[in-house]
């Protein structure tokens, strides 16, 4: 907070995202040990990531589901490539802040987490029950075609049959959580070609092509 000279500014900006702007030691440890570091370690030691909330069966199911939601394609990797399964397990344990209740007052952090956990556990179980009824096996035990058949019934809310509403709600939530996990990962951000979060010496507005697409232009300077 002392005065800041040009050299120091350049140093500050040049150092990003190294020491100056990163996390406190504890936060950094938490962040890196989890999604990314855990993944790398698993590759190195051959030891699998140990989920903290999801059971082994649930974790394997989630891995299949998120890759069905966002698969690898010609432009980028899959949801599991981007660490989405690890992220989802983390979010199941994480505490949100107290939240505004529609009735007034607040919903506590613990209550929200419990709701979140129950919805995930219950949703995954709902899916297994569906598969059991139809094919006499769990979602994981199903063939790819069988999995698709069940997911097709819950992936399009407006077209889903009335008895599918619980599956639809679960899949909507899982799709959203997968989207956050994927599009906020390094893989996802590069895929979207987000070009910001960088030092811009001079702001020149939007490029011609972007202006043209929206049918607008700058007034003559």
């Amino acid at each position, binding site marked *: 907070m002392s005065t800041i000279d040009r050299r120091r500014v350049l140093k500050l900006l040049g150092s990003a995202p190294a020491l100056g702007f990163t996390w406190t030691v504890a936060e950094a440890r938490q962040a890196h040990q989890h999604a990314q570091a855990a993944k790398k370690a698993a590759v190195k030691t051959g030891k699998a990531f140990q989920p903290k909330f999801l059971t082994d069966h649930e974790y394997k199911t989630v891995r299949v589901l998120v890759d069905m939601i966002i698969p690898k394609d010609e432009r980028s990797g899959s949801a599991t490539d981007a660490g989405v399964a690890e992220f989802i397990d983390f979010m199941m344990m994480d*505490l949100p802040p107290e939240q505004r209740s529609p009735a007034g007052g607040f919903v506590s952090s613990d209550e929200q987490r419990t709701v979140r956990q129950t919805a995930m556990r219950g949703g995954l179980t709902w899916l297994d029950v569906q598969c059991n009824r139809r094919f006499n096996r769990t979602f994981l035990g199903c063939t790819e075609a069988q999995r698709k058949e069940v997911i097709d019934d819950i992936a399009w809310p407006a077209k889903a049959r009335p008895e599918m509403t619980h599956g639809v709600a679960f899949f909507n939530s899982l799709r959203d959580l997968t989207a956050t996990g994927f599009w906020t990962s390094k893989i996802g951000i590069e895929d979207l070609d987000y070009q910001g979060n960088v030092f811009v010496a001079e702001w020149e507005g939007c490029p011609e*092509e972007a202006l043209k697409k929206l049918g607008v232009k700058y007034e003559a300077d």
Partner: protein
Amino acid sequence: MQIVPTPKIYDVCIVGSGAGGGMAAKVLTEAGADCIMLEAGPRFDSEKDGKMFAWPYDSPRRGAASPQRGFGDFDAGYGGWTLDGEPYTTAPGSQFYWYRARMLGGRTNHWGRISLRFGPHDFKRRSIDGLGDDWPIGYDDLKPFFDKVDTLIGIFGSKEGMENEPDGIFMPPPKPRCYELMVKKACDKLGITCIPSRLSILTKPLGDRPACHYCGQCGRSCSTHSNFSSPSVLIPPSLKTGKLKIVTGAMAREVTIDKSGLATGVSYVNTKDRREYQVRAKIVVLAASACESARILLNSKSTLFPNGLANSSGVVGKYLTDSTGLSVSGHFPQMMNSVPHNEDGVGGMHLYMPWWLDNKKLDFPRGYHIEFGGGRNMPGYGIMGGIHRLNGGGYGKALKNDYRKYYGASISFAGRGEMVPNKETYCEIDPVVVDKWGIPVLRFHFKFSDYEYSQAKHMQETFRSIIHDLGGTPTSPMPTREQGYGLEPGGWIIHEIGTTRMGDDPKTSVLNKNCRAHDVKNLFVADGGPFVSNADKNCTWTILALAMRTAEYIAEQRKNGSV
């Protein structure tokens, strides 16, 4: 419990370190006063503690909010709608949410930098429409201080010559983003004024602060001090005088007085050792935020002041208002498959819409301004959530492609309007509940009137007409009257003011026109508490100008020896 007094008697004790406290400290220390500043939270240094340039994946929760960081992992605000062990209550039937920061600089570290001067009409509303009250001062009284604030802190904008949106001393505004030009086109057609925004972000270097580098992350606090926060702009020059002592972790309990009824200082709880300390000072300036300052006064009860200090009028805590606010998002097909480019810009909108209509022709008395944002933002927690409402849902490669198409194709419009003070909206001390420091807490009463609901309806209709004009689709249905037209509950816009209002009559106001307590001549308030009305503008720039005026008045009085 033994109270530990400070040996030194300071010239001034300032409670709070945000816009008002920071400004008071700067003016008073530079005028030679020995100041002590009490801040309930920890120190904060944007160079070391800020999260500028962090990527979402640097956070295990991808920037989501947590109990410690109510606005997310990257946001600079330490605090939130609830604080552990520091409750507040609401009266039956009332809804009110109180955002509190606990950190050096308070909310100035993460605020929106929207820096609008209150205009000539905003000080004289009763004279114009018969509602509420006039301020005891007018725009002309504050204009020189607005000018000095502009020059000291730095602000960009454009000269428009609008009567109630006074021009300031502006740096050049940044060029609009392309979707902002698109919105302006619709506004021009609909007769809605759309002009460059006025934000306290440097587009030219100022003193030793470099110009903005357009990372769009002002809310994370700026590591190069290129925007306004109290610790970036006001605290450093105060410390440089050698006259400012900052005590962090100091939760103010009450203003202490002597037998003659003059303030002698402030007692506080040290949040680390939980002991009670007393700071002695010749002058006390409360700048703890409007409601927190009212709470301190109401809790400063004595035989001389049985209703709380400076409260012979019974007005402390009354006349509370927040800005009205609501938002509507739209999805725009022409923004799909957008051209990849860096659209970050400054940390906020480059254009906005000031109030453009005449209330005499409308069914509500006060106006609002419009803020908007969208486009290709840095992906964050919750990105493209609810996509099934736009594309129908699905999964697989088709869904992945949809995400790419839809990224950056929405704009959100938010209204910020003026609420008329009413008798049913105020805060008081809860008769039963104390916080973990043993300090009685505030209980809020809050009610909007039809004025605000009619205004909210107008906001909804306006935003929807802009969205429709552009060929877009609102992502939520028009709310009904029963749903309050989507008006956010009281406190939600975090512009709460008015709880220690100014006035010429000591029977109907807490402070005189110099923000000095009518009842206690060495007690001043320098936050949003003194405001008589709220205006359709964000309050910070006027808090800064008013705090500067108050602090200069105190410095003058010290010179005269009258306090």
